């Protein structure tokens, strides 16, 4: 039995899940619940940070598969060849760190915002943490699917119970959309499993063993199509995005944050980890389509974002456009573009997440996020406005801030494969700049419309926002540690030598 000494991966997944029990038991004492959720997510962040710092140098009892730092693996349901198999490579470690960071923020920004069913709310946040961690760490297709679904239920309840607007409608729409994709993916997973089993006589769901399966062209196209559908809905990729504006806008602040910063990433991660490596020929064949859809998404997202009157919807569409860039980088499938995409996944998580945090704070104060309701915020709440400006500029891709690095890398990678696509995507950056600046200008700089009497950021909020801001600047200036971590797995996955500048 290959059972590498480190239980840290299991702890990362199951600590938050285990913490649900005490949180629910203490449901009468809300302060204690908040405190418990907060400390568990801090421990998660510390563990993830430890993994990030030490992963490359950890000694290992047995040799993990190439590219991976840690692996945990033992049989689970032997009849079907299902194993409890976890592993962390550079990409996983980065996303685990992002998850822990975002969940910390999600807990912190909910301290005041949530007033009803506090214990249940925090239990759900913890459940999402466990599910997303599991998605990023699973190396068994069955286990991956399990976590993929497990993170959906708490999200459904989070939107439905604490949302505003039409929460039930948005929550069910989100859930049914995602289930439609993932159930077909389940069939495809079983399909790969059976094809591999029939070829080798060894039935297994282990990703590393399934990677070498030879699948004939037509079957591969169907199977890849099913995987692509599931991940494209989650990302979301044009034209499967119609659940997104409703869910993003109606979710509570922490919900929008998690949807945009984490759940969208699980879709992109699935493409990188599962869909492309399992079906390389089908992926190569379909990549023009994916290119086209991603580019269409970038342009369409910008165009629609420009027409929005509500800031949450505007940021939702801008996030949709940015995810188009990430998918573009994945579709190019070169080491350079892939590193750009992975880096951009982290960057997008922080900037868009930060914007949603700000909008959540605004919503908490003024009970609306309509653009017309605000104006001249720079005069009344300067600290808030400064953060708002910074995050918006980062989101627009200002050089020196984090998004620029990722977009630059992935567009450079795309340019080598398909110059026209890169040019088109580059043109897509311009409208992003326009609508973001328009929003910033209207909300922060014009004359104050109605005196709202807003309060500036509190210490707790300032802490959260400063953490985001520091990361935005730091990753914009010095992204090397992240790129170092990503280099090896990206080369192994894409099968090419590294082309990092």
């Amino acid at each position, binding site marked *: 039995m290959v059972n590498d000494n480190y239980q840290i991966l299991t702890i990362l997944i199951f600590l938050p899940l285990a913490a649900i029990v005490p949180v629910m038991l203490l449901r009468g004492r809300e302060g204690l619940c908040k405190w418990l959720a907060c400390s568990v997510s801090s421990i998660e962040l510390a563990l993830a940070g430890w993994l990030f710092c030490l992963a490359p140098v950890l000694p290992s009892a047995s040799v993990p598969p190439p590219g991976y730092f840690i692996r945990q693996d033992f049989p*689970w*349901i*032997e*009849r*079907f060849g299902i194993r409890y198999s976890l592993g962390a490579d550079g990409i996983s470690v980065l996303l685990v760190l992002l998850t822990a960071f975002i969940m910390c923020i999600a807990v912190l920004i909910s301290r005041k915002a949530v007033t009803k*069913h506090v214990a249940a709310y925090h239990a759900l946040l913890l459940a999402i943490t466990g599910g997303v961690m599991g998605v990023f760490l699973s190396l068994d297709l*069955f286990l991956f*699917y*399990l976590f993929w*679904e*497990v993170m*959906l*239920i708490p999200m*459904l*309840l989070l939107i*439905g*119970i604490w949302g505003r607007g039409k*929460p*039930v409608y948005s*929550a*069910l729409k989100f*859930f*049914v959309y995602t*289930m*439609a994709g993932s*159930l*077909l993916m*389940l*069939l495809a997973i*079983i*399909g790969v*499993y*059976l094809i591999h089993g029939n070829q080798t006589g060894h039935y297994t769901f282990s990703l590393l063993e399934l990677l070498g399966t030879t699948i004939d062209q037509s079957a591969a196209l169907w199977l890849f199509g099913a995987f692509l559908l599931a991940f494209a809905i989650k990302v979301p990729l044009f034209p499967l995005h119609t659940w997104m504006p409703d869910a993003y806008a109606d979710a509570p602040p922490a919900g929008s944050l998690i949807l945009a910063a984490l759940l969208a990433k699980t879709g992109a991660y699935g493409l990188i980890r599962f869909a492309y490596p399992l079906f390389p020929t089908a992926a190569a064949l379909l990549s023009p389509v994916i290119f086209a859809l991603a580019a269409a998404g970038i342009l369409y997202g910008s165009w629609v974002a420009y027409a929005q009157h509500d800031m949450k919807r505007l940021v939702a569409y801008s996030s949709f456009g940015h995810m188009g860039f990430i998918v573009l980088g994945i579709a190019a499938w070169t080491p350079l573009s892939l590193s750009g995409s992975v880096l951009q996944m982290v960057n997008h998580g922080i900037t868009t997440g930060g914007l949603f945090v700000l909008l959540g704070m605004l919503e908490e104060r003024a009970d609306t996020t309509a653009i017309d309701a605000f104006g001249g915020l720079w005069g009344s709440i300067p600290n808030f406005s400064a953060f708002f400006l910074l995050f918006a500029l980062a989101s627009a891709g200002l050089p020196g801030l984090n998004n620029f690095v990722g977009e630059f890398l992935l567009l450079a990678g795309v340019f080598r494969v398909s110059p026209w696509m890169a040019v088109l995507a580059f043109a897509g950056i311009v409208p992003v700049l326009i609508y973001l600046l328009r929003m910033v200008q209207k909300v922060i700089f014009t004359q104050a419309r109605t005196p709202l009497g807003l309060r500036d950021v509190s210490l707790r909020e300032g802490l959260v926002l400063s953490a985001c801001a520091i990361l935005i600047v730091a990753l914009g200036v010095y992204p090397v540690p992240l790129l170092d971590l990503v280099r090896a797995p990206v080369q192994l996955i894409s099968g090419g030598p590294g082309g990092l500048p």
Partner: protein
Amino acid sequence: MTMADVWAFMPLLIIAFGILSVLLMGAFVPGRSGTVAGMVASLGSAFWALQEPPQTAAPPLGIAFTPFSRFFIVLFSLTAAIVLLLSHDYNKRRGIGGEEYPAAILFATFGMVVLATATNFLNLFLGLEGLTFAFYILTAIDRNCSGSGEAGLKYLLQGAASAAFVAFGIALLYAGVGTLEIQAAMNAVMAGGGNVPIAWGGWGFLLIGLAFKVSLVPAHLWTPDVYQGAPTPVVAFLSTGSKAAGLVALVLLLTALGSGSEMTRMPLWWLSLLSMVLGNLAALRQRNLNRMLAYSSIAQMGYVTLALVTGTREGFSAVILYAVIYTAMNLTAFGAIASLSGEKRMDEINEYRGLGFSRPFQGGMLALAMFSLAGIPPTAGFMGKFAIFAAALGGGETVLAVLGIVTAVVSVYYYLRIVATLYMQAPEGEEASGGASFPEVAALCAAAFVILLLGVYPGPLMDVIDAILG
């Protein structure tokens, strides 16, 4: 009668003795001791069946005591025990008294056990009709509710028709091959001995009759009305025990038939497709929770049939696994509904608004059952669906599997609508309250434990099922 015969008969004897003692006790100490006596009898038969028989002898009088039948004796007996627990307080609230209730439950269990141990067609028929007969009584037992009587009559009329189909099918099979032994008859049919066209005709009639029992479209018409009218714990038993018994009959016949034959594949293929499509689409439109669950159970049986279509060993083991899981899910769902119903029944879905917070235990149980029925991990419903679809794809039924998955997406919507009603909508009028009684808590916790356990660790049960298929 040898010792081996006594061993084989013992579960039946225990239950029969239970029925008699419940009825007799009613004459001397009228009251509510029926529940206890019934539980003792059903648990006793379950424990007996758990034991390994000392020696295997030729089955006497068409009663087998094989691992297969022992497995189902345990399942049916435990289901009956849980139903008795759920009924105890429900009946008190609804004013359903008398010893006939626990006696009828035990009698239905008796029929199920006979069915599970049957090795010839006569016993199969007796078991099937015995249990259906008990359900005619149970469906109509709530005299304070006019819907109950109506449902009983509807069930009786359609049930009689289905009994006729089964009996006629058996008669034709006998005419065709000249034996009532299931294994011998099926061997003769496959080998082409005797008058094969007549035998296949008999097989067709038998299939229609059994489709009625497990409510497959187009033999499903009774299901929504009966689910709506019958007392809720009875529906819990009807939708689990009676359905599982129908599946046992199908598995017994199909495994005896051996490797899948084109003659059985096509009718099952269509029954499965129609049930999945119609059941799921009709469930979308329902306002009454019991009716919705009726259509949902039609769809669920469509999924099970999907695994039956393959005729493979994996298919049959998926069917049995799903029968167990489905039993736990529906016991939890109807158990929660029964526990929520007070003097007035909870019928409309709208009445469940906000109950997830005002009555957290029952609401949570209902939500768990809905997630499991929708097939969302980490519940057992997901494991069951996974096994079914893996078996279907492995058996080459790709088209039907894809169509089934598409209908499953539809089903997610109506199951989650219930969860949304429970947790995301404000209650109308004053807040309902009231916890569950101790028997209800025990029964619901047991069923929910099975759902969660099989959802994360189904390995041991799968091994057992593998073993009983021989």
